[in-house]
């Protein structure tokens, strides 16, 4: 059986992935393009005695290489392994979509065009004569509707036919002056009997566009000495004729003129049916200068509430389920090391991963809806003015707002930012938005030191202060590490569309699987490591001593509890983790932290929820403590000064995110390098700000 390798190309919002779903029974593989964090989807299926292998390239408006997505698409089309290009077009916006098609045709590859959203186009009064368009472009153009599943068989037929027949030469006829220069160059190549693996006309166009890749190739060839003066002459001709020296611009004008011409000859518009009106009406409300922003804030608030309120219900079940499993394992295997590593290490680790799944599913359903309906672009439009002041992009709000719930889905949400630099900057500051797990820490400390009537306001202030610091940090990073010109903010505002269940399900299930697979493995390994560090080395003599003591006081529950706690304290203090805490004390000394606070923060690297429990153990109250415990608050007041408590809150607010989040960050940012940078950046920022707070507070409250 033959295999047809297809490169799937289209502008954003043309229903590309929708079309794939319409192909029927397919196997999807999601990975990354080598070296970059751009999703690479490969789809395999069998049909009519052929194997199909489709590579879904990121949506691109044109074949330039400014954004990472465009670069990936361009590189794949230039050097990738494929037999033909399937170009998907939005029939309702045919002219602009044809701009890209014209560029694809200039690549000298086999191309098949799917005129998608055919049904919608007819409804809007856009009638495309596909036979005529096919003739004009010299390739098959097949009307399809991914939604109604029409035209799929015809499209497959056209693909197979294109695969089985030899490629036709480039059919496009540019304007006379441009063609003249192209002919000069191609005939020169023919005269010189130049051997080229790409079509001569394609080569000539690339030279006329001053394509750097082609120049690099020619610079080392003997023919260059003769070619160069010829090219200079051609450029001069073009400069005079087009009254500009922008060669790339000239090419684009030519290309756009071709698209315009093709539309003129093959498309009829019935303007009466044009229902841009609906989008106009919705936009009159949603992007209104006055009510647009409040509506957006309300929607965000709603999404946030649903994600973390509804999400907490299954989270409790998952928590209870894994809790029961841990207990079950321990009682089944007995009180052994094996039981402990499986239960407290592995199962607890897996549980911690799965715990975030409800949040991720709900949040990403919301985000998928925002994107599929077209609202996301409106929100970015409304917010860009504010975020741009801090060097961020309008769409940064999605990860940043999600960051208040949990950093794990927040980091993943940063994918809504298509530009690499915008995304990285947003990833770096997402941690400043205090996540839900930091709440117990704040509540405990504030409860211990503030009057009850002020506690709520102070807590709110802590959150706002964190967000403010995040924006300042964004500005600071933008002026240093991310310095450079602003990326253009020219963003399509797609038409409002009703999302389909399939589309949303597709997006959400993919995100969920990706999270489970990739983050899961790392988190599991690291959980076992942290379990080890907090349980070893063992002190059998001390344990034996305590056991005898406990036996002596058996019956007196108070004393048994106290002794047990003393033992936990001893074990933790002398474990590898405790030793690290002691060793790192000099680092925390200037902030007024004792070794207990240091260890609490270090266990917080595993999960922020652990900070309060650790403090419970270390201040001698057992590990059953929570943030509402008055006795722990009393202990804290007795042991910790107010300035170091303030410094502690600030440090906890900014320092390195938990294990699960940092692993997701590593993946989204694109490698360990960024993980290390984030560690240095957050630790330095946390230390410096905590130190400043400690110093100032010491002066004020002394």
């Amino acid at each position, binding site marked *: 059986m033959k295999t047809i390798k297809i490169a799937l190309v289209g502008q954003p919002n043309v229903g590309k992935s929708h079309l794939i779903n319409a192909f029927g029974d397919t196997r999807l593989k999601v990975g990354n393009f080598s070296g970059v964090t751009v999703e690479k989807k490969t789809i395999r299926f069998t049909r009519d005695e052929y194997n199909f292998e489709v590579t879904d390239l990121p949506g691109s*408006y*044109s074949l*330039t290489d*400014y954004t990472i997505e465009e670069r990936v698409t361009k590189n794949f089309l230039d050097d990738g392994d494929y037999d033909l290009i399937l170009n998907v077009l939005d029939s*309702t*916006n045919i*002219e*602009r979509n044809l*701009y*890209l098609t014209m560029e694809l045709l200039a690549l000298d590859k086999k191309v098949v065009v799917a005129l998608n959203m055919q049904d919608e186009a007819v409804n809007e009064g856009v009638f495309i004569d596909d036979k005529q368009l096919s003739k004009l472009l010299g390739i098959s153009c097949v009307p399809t509707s991914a939604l109604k599943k029409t035209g799929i068989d015809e499209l497959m037929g056209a693909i197979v036919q294109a695969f089985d027949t030899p490629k036709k030469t480039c059919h496009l006829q540019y304007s006379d002056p441009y063609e003249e220069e192209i002919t000069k160059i191609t005939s020169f190549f023919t005269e010189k009997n130049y051997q080229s693996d790409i079509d001569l006309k394609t080569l000539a166009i690339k030279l006329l566009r001053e394509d750097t890749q082609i120049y690099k190739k020619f610079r080392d060839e003997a023919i260059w000495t003769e070619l160069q003066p010829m090219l200079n002459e051609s450029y001069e001709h073009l400069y005079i004729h087009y009254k500009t020296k*922008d060669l*790339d*611009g000239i090419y*684009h*004008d030519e290309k*756009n003129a071709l698209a315009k011409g093709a539309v003129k000859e093959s498309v009829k518009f019935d303007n009466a049916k044009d229902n*841009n009106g609906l*989008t*106009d009406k919705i*936009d009159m409300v949603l*992007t*209104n*200068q*006055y009510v*647009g*922003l409040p509506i957006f804030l309300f929607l965000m608030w709603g999404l946030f509430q649903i994600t973390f309120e509804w999400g907490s219900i299954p989270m409790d079940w998952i928590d209870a389920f894994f809790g029961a499993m841990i207990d079950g394992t321990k009682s089944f295997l007995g009180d052994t090391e094996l039981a402990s590593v499986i239960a407290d290490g592995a199962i607890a680790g897996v549980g911690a991963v799965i715990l975030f799944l409800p949040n991720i599913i709900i949040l990403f359903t919301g985000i998928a809806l925002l994107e599929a309906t077209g609202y996301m*672009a409106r929100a*970015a*439009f*409304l917010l*860009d*003015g*504010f975020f*741009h002041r801090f060097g961020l992009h*309008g769409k940064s709000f999605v990860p940043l707002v999600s960051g208040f719930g949990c950093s794990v889905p927040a980091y993943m949400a940063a994918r809504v930012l298509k530009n690499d630099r915008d995304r990285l900057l947003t990833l770096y500051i997402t941690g400043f938005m205090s996540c839900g797990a930091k709440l117990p820490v704040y509540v405990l400390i504030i409860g211990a030191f503030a009057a009850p009537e002020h506690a709520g306001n102070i807590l709110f202030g802590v959150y706002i202060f964190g967000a403010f610091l995040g924006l300042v940090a964004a500005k600071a990073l933008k002026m240093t590490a991310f310095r450079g010109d602003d990326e*253009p*903010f*020219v*963003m*399509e*505002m*797609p*038409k409002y569309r009703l999302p389909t269940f399939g589309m949303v399900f597709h997006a959400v299930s993919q995100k969920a699987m990706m999270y489970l697979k990739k983050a899961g493995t790392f988190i599991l390994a690291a959980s076992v490591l942290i379990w080890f560090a907090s349980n070893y080395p063992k002190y059998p003599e001390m344990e034996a001593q305590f056991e005898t003591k406990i036996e002596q006081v058996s019956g007196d529950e108070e004393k048994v509890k106290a002794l047990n706690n003393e033992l936990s304290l001893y074990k933790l203090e002398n474990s590898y983790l405790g030793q690290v805490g002691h060793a790192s004390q000099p680092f925390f000394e200037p902030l007024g932290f004792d070794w207990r606070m240091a260890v609490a923060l270090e266990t917080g690297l595993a999960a922020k929820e652990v900070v309060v429990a650790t403090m419970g153990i270390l201040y001698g109250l057992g590990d059953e403590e929570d943030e509402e415990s008055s006795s722990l608050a009393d202990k804290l007041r007795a042991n910790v000064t107010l300035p170091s408590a303030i410094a502690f809150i600030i440090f906890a607010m900014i320092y390195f995110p938990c294990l699960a989040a940092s692993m997701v960050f590593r993946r989204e940012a694109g490698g360990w390098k960024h993980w290390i940078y984030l560690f240095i950046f957050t630790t330095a920022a946390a230390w410096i700000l905590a130190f400043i707070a400690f110093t100032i507070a010491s002066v004020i409250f002394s």
Partner: protein
Amino acid sequence: MTLNLLQKGKSATITTINAEKELKNRFNSFGVVKGATVHVEQYTLAKQTMEIRINKTRMALRVSEAEKVEIS
């Protein structure tokens, strides 16, 4: 006059684009080219971002970018 000065609800024709290559290219792929008719749909409250429409394509851009588009 530049595009950022065009009032909401008004249309005009693009005469020149004075942008650097990257922005120009992006404009190009959206149909923001010489000779196109541009319609202003909306400004944000702070007048830092605007929504325009050319043919069937609506797009958002910053006012600082619209300054680089000459219209008449």
